[in-house]
């Protein structure tokens, strides 16, 4: 069975410092993995997706994630945080067909001036 674990429920960084949001997955086959972001009072938006083409995936707003099969990880990073990055982030694995997504519990990112 597929599952994802987000290792931190809250992350707090200062503006201009790096961001690291951690995600581990479990999958019985080569997974498809996503990161979604949810800003307050808005719907979820796709940040990036891994589809086995390249292990380092670049997304929108300067975010990227690296797929590491040996560590079963798909951590999200950004070199320099911006105030507008404050949001909740979800790591997601695809389970089976029909786009059945399994969401992690979410990581709330706070960015301080």
């Amino acid at each position, binding site marked *: 069975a597929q599952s994802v674990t987000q290792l931190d429920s809250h992350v707090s960084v200062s503006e201009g410092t790096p961001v690291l949001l951690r995600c581990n997955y479990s999958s019985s086959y080569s997974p498809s993995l996503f990161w979604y972001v949810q800003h307050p009072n808005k719907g979820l938006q796709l940040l990036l997706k891994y589809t086995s083409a390249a292990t380092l995936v670049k997304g929108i707003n300067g975010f990227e994630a690296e797929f590491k099969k040996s560590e079963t990880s798909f951590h999200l990073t950004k070199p320099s945080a911006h105030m507008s990055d404050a949001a909740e982030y979800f790591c997601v694995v695809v389970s089976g067909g029909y*786009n059945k997504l399994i969401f992690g519990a979410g990581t709330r990112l706070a960015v301080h001036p």
Partner: protein
Amino acid sequence: DVKVTQSSRYLVKRTGEKVFLECVQDMDHENMFWYRQDPGLGLRLIYFSYDVKMKEKGDIPEGYSVSREKKERFSLILESASTNQTSMYLCASSADTGRNEKLFFGSGTQLSVL
């Protein structure tokens, strides 16, 4: 841009009431989904539909039903609302059934059952 519209941003209902949550998408997508979002639990799939009049149970269908009479509209029904159904409900749609197809989400309906 794809737009997924949920009819209400906030709803307050009483225990035992029948509740309808409506979702409309404007991009002719085949697939539509209902999730509920609870703090610390992420999003959990309630039901999804891959065609008009077709539906499949998700991970937590108990206490819910759905209706898809037209391609653009997917309704979630709480037959008899209970307090443990107080939650944020998110509707989503996607164009295809491929594993890499992204979902487009509505802004959510925060339902409170008193």
